[in-house]
Structure formats: C-alpha cells, structure tokens
C-alpha cells in the first residue's frame, strides 16, 4: 500500500513539474491559503460572544493595532537587530573560517569533529540562565547565546562542504601547485559555498528563535520582549500584532539571505 501511494505522488509531481500552467495554479492555491486562514480567523472572531473579542481579536483590530504600534515595533526591531546582527555575523564568520579549516585538514577533523558531535546537539536555550548570570550585561549574554546557536549549523555545513569538494577541483588545485591555504581560499571555500549557505539558513532560523527566547528572559526591549510585555498586560491585539510583525521580519530576513545566496553563487552547482 505505501508503495502505491508513493508511486502516485511521484507521478503527480512529475506531471506538475512538466507543465508550467499547473505550477501557476498551485501558486494561486498557495495565495488563497492565506486568504482562507484570514477568512476563518475573521469568522471565528465575529461568531465569538462580545466579551471574548478582546481575547481573540478580529483581523481588523489586530492590523489596526499593528499600524498604531509601528513606531514602538520599529524601536524594538532596532533593539533586536543590535543583538542579532553582530551575533549572526560573528557566527557566520567564525563558523565558515573554522569549518573550512577543519574540513580541509584530516588532523583538525580528528580533533574537532568528535567534540562538535557532543557539544552541537545541546539545545542552546539551556545556556541562557547561566549566560545571563555570568556575563555583565543582558546584551552581551544574548549575543553570546545567539552566536552559539547560529555557529554550529554554519560550522558543520562548512566543514561538510569542504570535505565534499569534487575530486576534479582538488586535482586541478594540486596540478596548479596550490599551497594548502591557497586551496582552501580559492577552491574549497567557493566550492563549499552552497553548503555554507545551507548552514546560514538553518543558523538564521536558530538565531531568531534564540533571540526571542533570550528577550523573554531578561530584556527591556526587543521583539520577543514586546510580545511578552503585552501578553503580561493581557493586551492581546498588541501581542498578536507583535507576533505577526516578528513573523514578517523573519520572513524578510530569510528572503534576503536567499537573494544574497543567488547573487553570490552565480555558477551552476
């Protein structure tokens, strides 16, 4: 039975990929999914008795609150990005440099990969209370936590990508008499870029999760703090607006990273 199911989905996928028209129709369904969710949301809010309307605000109330809260949300965004940007940049640079170095050397692999296997799977949330206790300011501890969370996926992917450099590129580098560092810089790093971007996508997701969680713990500003603050005061329209806004910012950041990837890796791979 599962085999039959699999076959059916496979043939379905094959057909949709062949015809551009059905792809267009599928993306229309995708858009209408948003509209459907919005419609259900509006209907439920409208059907609820008036006394619950504040607990479950209508889309209209939520969006108008979002508009009203924009100045405060922009300040929160700036505050969050003051943590996110340095932490993520640090994670990408450290993860890439260290990952390519480790992936390119058998000796370093033998030392660091077992260590990474043990340490990387620890959920970074468990470090939060200690980091806040240990480091002088909330900002520094949040940067540390976010950096740690985004570092591992970048590091692991960068080293895997360096290990997976096609034989042909290695042979060419050897035939051209490249030194080890020339090889890493001019061949292994660009060849590993698709892997590195893969790690950067995962890392950015982790960074957003850790950022908002860290802000729930001890921040006085930021997007996660915004949501927590208005939840504490039972201002649910504002809280929902904060959730939607955070979702939008996350989506835009991910899209931006995707565009950057397309621009940087311009060759077929």
């Amino acid at each position: 039975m599962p085999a039959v199911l699999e076959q059916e989905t496979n043939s379905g996928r094959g057909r949709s990929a062949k015809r551009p028209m059905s792809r267009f129709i599928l993306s229309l369904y995708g858009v209408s999914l948003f509209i459907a969710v919005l419609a259900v949301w509006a209907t439920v809010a409208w059907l609820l008795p008036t006394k619950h309307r504040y607990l479950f605000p209508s889309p209209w109330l939520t969006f108008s609150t979002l508009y009203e809260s924009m100045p405060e949300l922009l300040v929160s965004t700036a505050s969050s990005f003051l943590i996110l940007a340095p932490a993520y940049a640090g994670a990408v640079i450290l993860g890439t440099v260290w990952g390519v170095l480790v992936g390119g050397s058998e000796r370093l692999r033998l030392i660091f990969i077992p260590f990474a296997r043990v340490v990387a799977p620890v959920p970074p949330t468990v470090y939060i209370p200690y980091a806040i206790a240990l480091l002088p300011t909330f900002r520094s501890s949040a940067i540390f936590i976010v950096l740690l969370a985004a570092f591992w996926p970048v590091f692991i992917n960068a080293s895997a990508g360096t290990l997976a450099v096609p034989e042909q590129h290695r042979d060419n580098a050897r035939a051209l008499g490249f030194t080890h560092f020339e090889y890493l810089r001019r061949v292994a790093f660009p060849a590993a870029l698709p892997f590195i971007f893969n790690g950067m996508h995962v890392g950015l997701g982790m960074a957003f999760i850790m950022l908002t969680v860290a802000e729930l713990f001890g921040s006085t500003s930021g997007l996660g703090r915004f949501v927590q603050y208005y939840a504490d005061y039972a201002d649910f329209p504002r809280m929902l607006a904060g959730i939607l806004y955070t979702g939008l910012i996350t989506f835009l950041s991910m899209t931006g990273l995707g565009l950057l990837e397309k621009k940087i890796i311009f060759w077929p791979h």
Partner: protein
Amino acid sequence: MPATLTPATSRSPEAGAPGTGPGELRVENLFFAYDEQRITLEDISFVVPEGEFVCLLGASGSGKTTLLRLIAGLESPGSGRILWRGDPVTGPSLGRSIVFQEYSLFPWYRLRDNVALAIEKARPGATKAETREVADEYLGMVGLRDAAHKYPHELSGGMRQRGAIARTLALGSPILLMDEPFGALDPANRLRLQDLLLGIRHGSSSGSMVIFVTHDVDEALLLGDRVVILGSTPGRVIDEIRVDFPRPRNAEALFALGTFRELRSEISAYYHRDALRQIDRSSLITSQQEGI
C-alpha cells in the same frame, strides 16, 4: 652538444632544474590497482623523449586515464616507477600540467582569472597588470581573447576546453598531459580543436612533450609522433607505433592518404582483436556463473 642547443623550456621552478638524467620521461614496470581484486595497470614500460607528442591509445578499461594520473603525480604506483630527467615522480608538479576531459576551469573565476592562476605560479614576481596581460595573450593563442571576462558556464564546451588548454600553456611546463581533452565535444568542434592544438604546437618553439590520452584512432594518428597502444583489463602496452606523416598536418589531407588508411586499419585490427578477446573471456565467465 653545445649548451645553447638545449631546449629552453619554461620559467616554472621544476622545469628550470637540470635534473640528473637524460631528457626523457621513463615509465618502468609500472603496476597499479585501485582494489585488490582487479589490476588496472600491468607492467607498463615506455620512454618518451623530450619534446615528443605521444598518444596513449586505448579502449575503456585500458587504464589510460590512470596511467596519465600516475604520470601527473595525482596517484602513486603500486610498484615500478616513473622517472623524469632521471628523477622519480613523487607528486604533482608545475613541470607537468594537465588538461582533463571536462571541468578543468574553476566555475567561480572568470576565464582570465583562471589562466592568471597558472601565470601567478609560473611567474611569481609578476605584477597584477602583467599577469592580466599575459593571460590575455595566452587566451589570444586559443582564440578566446574576447571572452576573457566571461565565466566558464557562459562558454560552450569547446571554448571551455580551449580555456583549459590556454591555462596549461600558461604554466609553461615541459610536459603537457591531456586526458581525452576533446572527448566530450561534438565531431566538428573536435576537429577544430585538434587543428588548433596542431597549430599551436607547430607555431611555438617551446617544444613541450605532450602525452595525449584518447580512444580515437584517427585522433591519435593525426596528433601523435608516436602511438602507444594499450590493451584492456588489465591495462598493458600492446604495441608502439611511429607515426611519420609530415608536419604541419591537417585532418583532411591526412585522411586522404593511402598510408594513413593502412596504418589506421592495422591499429584498428589490434584494437578489435583485444576487444574480442575481452568479450570471449567475459562471456565465458558469465556463462560459468549462471551455470548454463
């Protein structure tokens, strides 16, 4: 022999070294196996004098690519040795540059920068502007000066191979190794590039040794001064044939020669005998296994 007559080859480090022995590449009793069950190369011996264009002709399974990789220093022999000017080959060197069948260029560098990588190695002192200029000169030799700013994926397969040849020439190595460089091209493009290679060789005074791997009898006879014929499974030398057609050669004139056709059918016969022997043996093995 007066010192002035010794060929001035290149500027790369190893090439400048005099070496301790005669100016030749010597392959001695070479054995190689990727795994224990199957021998890839069995007792290969031949000598290539400096400046000669030799073709290694063999069907698939003859280990011709492996042999070239061994000469390049990309693999190490199981036993036997390879001597260049009397010194054993122990690893890759700028003195032996190689063109692969495909993907010789790095896709993230422009054509000019790909060639510049070789020039930076061949002339370590050169400024950026000089390197660029020399890169464009070499690209000009293969008719790609106008495409210097393009990336490999913007070029056709033939253009990419021309670019790879330009990069190899830019290294200025006394030995050029070519692993079926035109094997992935359509026939018209292949003829064009064979012509280009003959032209470059005829026009230059560098006199590099070329070791050219191919499975195409016509190609071997068109390009080579000598053809080393390899048999299959395991790879071994069946015969060596001198090709004395006058140079400059071109495909059209050569294919019309009676002596060319004779030589070609002689080599083809060798080739076929070996292939038939393979088929006989393999069908024998399968029938035993299947118990028919």
